[in-house]
């Protein structure tokens, strides 16, 4: 425990100092030096994280002798700002909360971040020199690592919100890294504004919850819920807003914040565009870590959701299931390899959401089954997905580096040129399709059986269907890149595609190994909703069905895309409507643009600005004009002619005299 206290501040402080250091000394270092500084920092952080997580899980820190459940430990909690004099609970602290899920996230973040730092050395080195923005890049990566670690370690909901915004801004800066490119600019603006819009709901949710509970603290909130109080003692019971209990509403609003970051429908529109950023940062932020923040948020408040707001969880399930299927259908029709992966990420995160959504502490009529299995499965999938999706993105980075295009049409037949990338990409595809023994098989299987066992059969069917689609579009991608028809330019080109140098290859291999083994980790022992170990039994029916669907998906992909043929074109012609709609992402972006650009910008903003200039300002100008006019009219009175004065005087006397006589 003491050791953890020594290492814990380092985890948060070091990335922050790296950020300040690299940010304040801009252009002082060459690209290589900046990279080495950043990577050295994150290596130290990673080792601290590993040490803390291992100590927590296996070193007896999390489970002191005799305890059956993992403890929730607040390593430190510093007061940052008191928000209210009357209610000491409303204090924002910056702290370090250690429980199974945050310990797991420490491993995920530090691993992926370290690998991406190393990988970027190769990726940002192009045409014989490092990219000019290298230092800025590593600076923002450090900021991101700091913010993401702070987010998962948050002791209170406001700390989480603070770091939530910080990951948002670092994501904005990384998407807009190539700031001369118009596509990157609109993508980074879109990402920031969409997530900000969702954050507004999160903030309102926090306001409602903190108003009634008078606390920000996660542990206190969860304890309240676990002790059978509704969120807030009893004060929120019976309070309703348009037919919903207020707790449900508040928790749903908080979830919406998470939906923004995790790109759930209808906030998913920013993630595909976010692929304009450098590929390694997409791997880190938009595949493995930041986008699962929403899932983490729901998991962090899971007791509150499960006990006080089961309706909100139900809504999460439906939104998740819809998003999973929806994104998978779109992924089939995309031709940009990074966008296929982006939609696949959306779909997979939706899996995690669904798994959380179906989990409960107890379900009426369901006995002898572990009803919180969904929670474990969700976290498990988060872990495995982070590893294989980061790997897939890094593989894409290697491919894009060679081909210098994101379009599938420019690729094909790359297997013989890039064998290592081929192998790693293949492992990633098998894992995401759910083929044993790769990690995705286990975690996805558990999600599906959680759906089925918790009596959500409809959801189960949708998710299985999605699994089949996933297998199909991933292998479509795989065959299209590595087999299909070789691009004739490769043979004649001076720079033949080739496997990259070690900084880019090493991370691929590390992730590939992890993807092969992490399906066998005993997640049921470590990460559960109640912190007590649960038995995970393989549901052979579920596994059988999902394997069959996956095999079917792969088979169809094989038939259509292994060798160049005219079948895909024929099928596309038959389902033209669906294909066009899917390749245009079902026009959701256009709907958003319609609402924002035409309605809010075009009508509301323009009319307010017009009203301001012409009515309000016009009124003020009118006052000025009237005053001017009045004075210029009345100035004739002071003409200086004595006769006129005398005339007015005499007339005045006459009028007053007449009045005096008659009144």
């Amino acid at each position: 425990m003491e050791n953890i206290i020594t290492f814990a501040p380092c985890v948060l402080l070091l990335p922050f100092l790296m950020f300040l250091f690299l940010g304040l000394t801009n252009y002082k270092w060459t690209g290589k030096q900046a990279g080495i500084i950043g990577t050295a920092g994150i290596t130290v952080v990673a080792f601290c994280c590993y040490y803390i997580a291992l100590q927590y899980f296996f070193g007896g820190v999390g489970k002191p002798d005799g305890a059956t459940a993992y403890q929730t430990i607040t390593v430190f909690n510093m007061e940052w700002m008191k928000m209210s004099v009357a209610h000491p609970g409303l204090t924002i602290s910056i702290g370090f909360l250690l429980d199974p899920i945050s310990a797991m996230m420490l491993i995920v973040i530090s691993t992926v971040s370290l690998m991406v730092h190393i990988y970027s050395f190769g990726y940002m080195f192009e045409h014989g020199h490092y990219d000019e923005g290298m230092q800025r890049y590593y600076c923002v990566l450090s900021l991101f690592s700091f913010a993401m670690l702070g987010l998962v370690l948050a002791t209170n909901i406001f700390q989480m919100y603070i770091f939530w915004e910080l990951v948002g801004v670092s994501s904005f800066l990384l998407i807009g890294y190539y700031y001369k490119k118009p596509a990157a600019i609109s993508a980074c603006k879109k990402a920031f504004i969409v997530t900000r819009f969702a954050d507004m709901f999160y903030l309102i949710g926090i306001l409602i919850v903190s108003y009634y509970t008078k606390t920000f603290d996660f542990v206190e909130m969860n304890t309240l819920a676990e002790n059978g109080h509704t969120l807030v003692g009893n004060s929120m019971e019976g309070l309703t807003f348009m037919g919903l209990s207020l707790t449900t509403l508040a928790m749903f609003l908080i979830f919406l914040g998470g939906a923004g970051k995790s790109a759930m429908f209808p906030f998913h529109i920013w993630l595909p565009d976010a692929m304009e950023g450098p590929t390694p940062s997409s791997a880190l932020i938009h595949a493995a870590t930041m986008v699962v923040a929403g899932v983490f948020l729901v998991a962090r408040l899971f007791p509150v959701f499960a006990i006080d707001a089961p309706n909100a969880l139900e809504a999460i399930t439906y939104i998740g299931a819809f998003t999973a299927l929806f994104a998978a259908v779109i992924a089939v029709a995309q031709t940009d390899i990074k966008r296929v992966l982006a939609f696949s990420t959306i779909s997979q995160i939706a899996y995690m959401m669904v798994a959380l959504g179906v989990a409960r502490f107890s379900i009426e009529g369901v006995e002898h089954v572990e009803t919180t299995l969904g929670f474990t499965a969700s976290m498990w999938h988060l872990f495995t997905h982070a590893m294989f999706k980061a790997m897939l993105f890094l593989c894409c980075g290697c491919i894009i580096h060679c081909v210098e295009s994101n379009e599938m049409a420019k690729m094909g037949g790359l297997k013989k040129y890039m064998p290592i990338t081929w192998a790693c990409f293949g492992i990633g595809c098998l894992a995401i399709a759910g083929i044993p023994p790769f990690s995705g098989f286990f975690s996805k299987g558990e999600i599906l059986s959680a759906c089925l066992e918790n009596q959500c059969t409809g959801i189960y069917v949708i998710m299985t269907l999605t699994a089949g689609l996933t297998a199909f579009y991933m292998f479509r991608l795989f065959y299209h890149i590595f087999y299909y028809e070789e691009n004739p330019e490769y043979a004649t080109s001076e720079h033949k595609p080739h496997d990259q140098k070690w900084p880019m290859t090493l991370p691929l291999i590390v992730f590939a190994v992890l993807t092969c083994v992490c399906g066998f980790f005993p997640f049921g022992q470590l990460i559960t909703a109640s912190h007590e170990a649960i038995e995970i039994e393989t549901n052979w029916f579920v596994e059988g069905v999902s394997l069959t669907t996956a095999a079917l998906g792969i088979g169809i992909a094989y038939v259509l895309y292994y060798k160049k043929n005219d079948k895909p074109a024929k099928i596309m012609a038959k389902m033209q409507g669906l294909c066009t709609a899917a390749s245009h992402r079902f026009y959701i972006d256009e709907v958003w643009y319609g609402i924002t650009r035409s309605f809010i910008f075009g009508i509301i903003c323009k009319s307010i600005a017009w009203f301001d200039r012409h009515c309000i300002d016009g009124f003020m100008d009118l006052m000025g004009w009237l005053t001017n006019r009045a004075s210029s009219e009345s100035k004739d009175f002071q003409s200086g002619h004595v006769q006129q004065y005398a005339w007015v005087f005499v007339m005045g006397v006459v009028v007053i005299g007449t009045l005096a006589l008659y009144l």
Partner: protein
Amino acid sequence: MMAMLYLESSKKAIRGTMVAGSAVLTILSVYLAVQFLALRAGGDTSEYLFYSTTPWYQGFLNIHYAVGVDGVSVAMLLLSSIVVLTGSFASFAVENQTKDYFLWFLMLSIGVFGFFISVDLFTMFIFYEVALIPMYLLIGLWGTGPKEYAAMKLTLMLMGGSAFLMVGILGIYFMGSPAGSENTFEMTQLIKTVADNMPMEWQRTFFCLTFVGFGVLGAMFPFHTWSPDGHASAPTAVSMLHAGVLMKLGGYGCYRVSICLMPEAAQEMGWIFIILTGTSVFYGAYSACVQNDLKYINAYSSVSHCGMVLFALLMYNQTAMTGAFLQMLSHGLMTALFFCLIGSIYGRTHTRDIREMGGMMQIMPVLGVCYVIAGMASLGLPGLSGFVAEMNIFLGAFEVNDTFHRVFTLLACSSIVITAVYILRVVGKMLYGPVQNEHHRELTDATWWEKVAAFGLIISIAIIGIFPGWVRDMISDSLDEIVKHLN
């Protein structure tokens, strides 16, 4: 200091004196803040510290020159001195009639400082006018664009406001003291007597009069229209001082005079102003979204942020009111930074139209990065000052538990999204992207004095953003009394 300025003749010496003088001022303000905190920590609980009073004019009106500071005014003094210091650096660009410019600039700052330390209503009012008049000359002579029109409009509207104020202040003077005792302008005494002695209907009237009077300066809807024109025409440092500090006079006055002296009327009549200020918040934000002139964008954004200040003051609870003062600090520093940068950019490109600029980040990276930081502070990024202020305001406003307040609080919350929209619009159009105008490629990056001004402000913003505890507690403690009164 003014005398010194008058004697100096060369441009360099003038600048040197100005910077040295305002640096001393800043050091003094920091020293004051430290002393203040030390005394408070030492258990001195009197309402105003460093209090002193001298009779000034006791013929017909009982006027004292009474000064003193509490936590709120210390915070405001810190803000003013920082903005004046950085403003002096930013004024290095003024080439003609430098001496006169700095003299008037100094006059303006004297008014501002005087206003924040006054405890006597009449002295306060005089300093208020002292701060307003130089504005006319500064904008009219050293401004750009339709400067005479803007200067005239600004001065007339603010003078209109102060006419309301004058009536209000005299009303408080004549009706606010118990019968038989001497009338007074002294706020420490008025705060005890006004509520009991003045008839309720008059309290209501004077509350509205003074609130509108100060509200004009605080850019409250619909009296905000001087702000876009005035800011657009004013020279850099004047915009900085004006948006950064002068607009805070409005909020500060609303608190010190209207709310503190007439709490009951404030409770009753507050709703009118909640509607107006709530409107300001989103009205300013939406208007800013479609402006193309950089200064107009920031002027409207100021309307939105200052609306937030008054809105929070009207919530009458400690968290929100503390948030209001934090927002004043934060907005003061941030807008000063914005106008400083806009001045620098305009000085180079000679246009403020964002459609004519592009790719500035490549040409002037330092100014560009500073602009992004200012934008981030404006949209409330944690770690910078805007976040601290906004969270206090939202949390406090949400504590008022009725539908009317809730609706306006939610509207105010929605401004965080709109703010992001107009900030990023500028960043995307002006800073990012390809270079629009090839001539701009020859432009240079920030000079040393522009860097000093910008970095000074950024450091202050970051200090408040990262260590908000001390300043928040300092302000919050000073509000104890009045909050008890209000509830």
